[in-house]
C-alpha cells in the first residue's frame, strides 16, 4: 500500500444484523482510496448507506466481507482497534449525543484522557483543539447551554485533541441552523487547509461539496461515481437518479442556458458565475 494513502476500502460489504436495524441498510462491495490531506465529500440521500462508511472507517463496524485499511492497518484485527481510532476520528450528526462531560474543556479532554496522556500534554492538546475550532473562550462553559453549532464544534475539538490524521464527519450539519452550519463548514475547511488534516465530510447538502477535492456519490449501497466537483455537478440527470439535486448556482446556470445565455461549462460556485456574468456585460 502506498505511503500517502490514509484510508482504503477494498471490496467492502456490510450488512446490519436484523435485530439491530429494521431497514437493513448496508454498503455493497465498495472500494476507494483516500490520500493524506485530501478533502472528500460523500454525497447520498438518506438511507443510501453513506453513514455506514463513517462507522466502518474506524473499526466501530467491521466489514462483513472485504477489508478496510487505516494507514495500512486492517480494522478487523483486534490489536488495530485503538490505533485505528487514534488515526481516524469520527464526528456524528447529533452533537448532544457525543458530549460526555458537563464542562467544555472537560469534554474535549475525554479522548486524551482515554489515551492515558500526561496531564500537561492533555492541557496543551485541549487548548490547541479548542482554539482550532474557535471555542477557546467557552472552555469553562456548561456544554448543555451552548447552541447546536457550538456543541458540534466542541465535539470536533474532542476528536482533534486526539490528533488524528483524518476526521470523518457524518452529516455534522444536518441538525444545525444556517449559522451553525456555516461555522462548522468553516471549521472543517480550516482543519484541512491549515492543519493538513484529511477530511471526509458525509452530507446531503450539495453546497457543502463545492470546495471538495473529490466527491463520492453513494446510491443504493454502492459508490455510484467519484470525481471532482465539476465532473459531478455537470451531470444533473445523474444526480437526480441518486435522489440528489444540483447546487443552487448550477441550477441557475442551467436555467440561464435554457434561456439562451451562453455560459462555459462547469460553473457551480456563486463566485465563478458572478465573475462570468460581469465579464459578459463588460464585453458587451
Amino acid at each position, binding site marked *: 500500500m502506498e505511503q500517502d494513502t490514509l484510508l482504503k476500502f477494498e471490496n467492502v460489504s456490510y450488512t446490519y444484523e436484523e435485530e439491530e436495524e429494521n431497514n437493513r441498510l448496508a454498503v455493497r462491495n465498495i472500494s476507494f482510496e483516500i490520500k493524506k490531506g485530501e478533502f472528500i465529500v460523500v454525497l447520498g440521500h438518506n438511507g443510501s448507506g453513506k453513514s455506514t462508511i463513517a*462507522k466502518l472507517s*474506524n473499526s*466501530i463496524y467491521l466489514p462483513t466481507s472485504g477489508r478496510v485499511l487505516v494507514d495500512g492497518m486492517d480494522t478487523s484485527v483486534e490489536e488495530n482497534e*485503538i490505533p485505528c*481510532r*487514534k488515526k481516524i*476520528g*469520527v464526528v*456524528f450528526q*447529533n452533537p*448532544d*449525543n*457525543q*458530549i*460526555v*462531560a*458537563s*464542562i467544555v*474543556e*472537560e469534554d474535549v*479532554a*475525554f*479522548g*486524551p*484522557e*482515554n*489515551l*492515558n*496522556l*500526561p*496531564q500537561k500534554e*492533555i*492541557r496543551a492538546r*485541549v487548548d490547541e483543539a479548542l482554539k482550532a475550532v474557535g471555542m477557546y473562550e467557552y472552555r*469553562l*462553559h*456548561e*456544554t*448543555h447551554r451552548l447552541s447546536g453549532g457550538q456543541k458540534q464544534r466542541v*465535539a470536533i475539538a*474532542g*476528536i482533534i485533541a*486526539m490528533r488524528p490524521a483524518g476526521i470523518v464527519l457524518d452529516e455534522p450539519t444536518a441538525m444545525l441552523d444556517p449559522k451553525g452550519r456555516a461555522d462548522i463548514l468553516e471549521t472543517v475547511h480550516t482543519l484541512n487547509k491549515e492543519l493538513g488534516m484529511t477530511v471526509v465530510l458525509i452530507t446531503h447538502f450539495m453546497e457543502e461539496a463545492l470546495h471538495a477535492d473529490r466527491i463520492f456519490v453513494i446510491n443504493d449501497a454502492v459508490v455510484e461515481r467519484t470525481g471532482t466537483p465539476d465532473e459531478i455537478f455537470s451531470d444533473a440527470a445523474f444526480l437526480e437518479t441518486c435522489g440528489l439535486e444540483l447546487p443552487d448556482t448550477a441550477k441557475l446556470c442551467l436555467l440561464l442556458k435554457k434561456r439562451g445565455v451562453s455560459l462555459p461549462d462547469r460553473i457551480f460556485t456563486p463566485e465563478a458565475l458572478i465573475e462570468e456574468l460581469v465579464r459578459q456585460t463588460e464585453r458587451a
Partner: protein
Amino acid sequence: MIKDITIGQFFPGSSPIHKLDPRAKILILLVYIITLFLVKNFFSLLLLFLFSFICVLISKISAKSVWKSIRALIFIVIFTAVLQIVYNKNGTVLLKPFPQFDFCITSGGVFTAVFLVLRIIALILLSSLLTYTTSPTMLTDAIERLLSPLKLFHIKVHSLAMMMTIALRFIPTLIREIDIIMSAQKARGAKLDAGKFGERIKALISVFVPLFVSSFRRAAELAVAMECRCYTDGANRSRLKVMRFALRDYLAFFICAVIFAGALVVNYVPLCQSLLFERVI
C-alpha cells in the same frame, strides 16, 4: 416550571470556595453534616449556621440562586416548624387560642421549631454550595478518588464514577426533552396538567414511551461516540485535572476543624454553656 430546577447546577467562578479541592469540600461537608446533627445547643447551631452563611458569601453565588435552592425545600422546612409548634408541649405555655381544646403553643415548641428550621437551612446552604461551586466532572472525580479504597473489594469504582458523570451531563438534556415531548403531546390534547387521575396516567404514557425510546437511542449513540474517542471500560485513564491537596485545602481543613470543634465543645461542655448564658442573658 421543570426547566427552572437549580439543584445540582454548577456556576463557574473563581472564589476561594471554587478553588478548593473537591475532595476537601466533600469531606468538610460530611463532617459538617455530622456536627450539625450532633449539636443540640442553640449557640453551637448558630455558629454552624453563620459558618455556612459566610461560606456562601465567600463563594459569591448570587442570593437568588441560593434562595432558589432553599425554596425548593421550603415545604419541608415549614412542615417541620408547624409540626413542632403544634405537637411540642415542653416549656411554658405561650398561647392557648382555644380554651375548650387541649391545643396550645409552648415556648419549647417555638424554640425547637426555630432550631430545626435553622438546622435544615444550614444543611441546604452548604450542600447546595458544593454543587454550585464544583463542576459535575470534578465532583464525580472526587467521589471516585474518595471511594477508591473500595477497589480492594472488587467494586468497579471507575465505572460507577463514569456513570455518574454521564448522568449529570444528561440531566439538563433530558429535562429539556421531557419539556418538549410534554408540550408536543399537550398540543394533541393530552391531559397532562388537568383531567381525571386515569386520564393523566394515560397521558403520561404518551410522554414516557417517546422518552424511553429516545434515551435508548441516545445511549447507543453516546456509546459509539465514546468508543470513537478510544474509551475502553476499565483501562487506565489519565486526567486533565489532577487533584492535589494544596495549602489552601489544609488551611480550610484547619479552620473548619476549629469551628466544628468549637461548636461541639459549646455543645458538650456544660461550663461553656452556662458562661455563654450569663453573658447573653
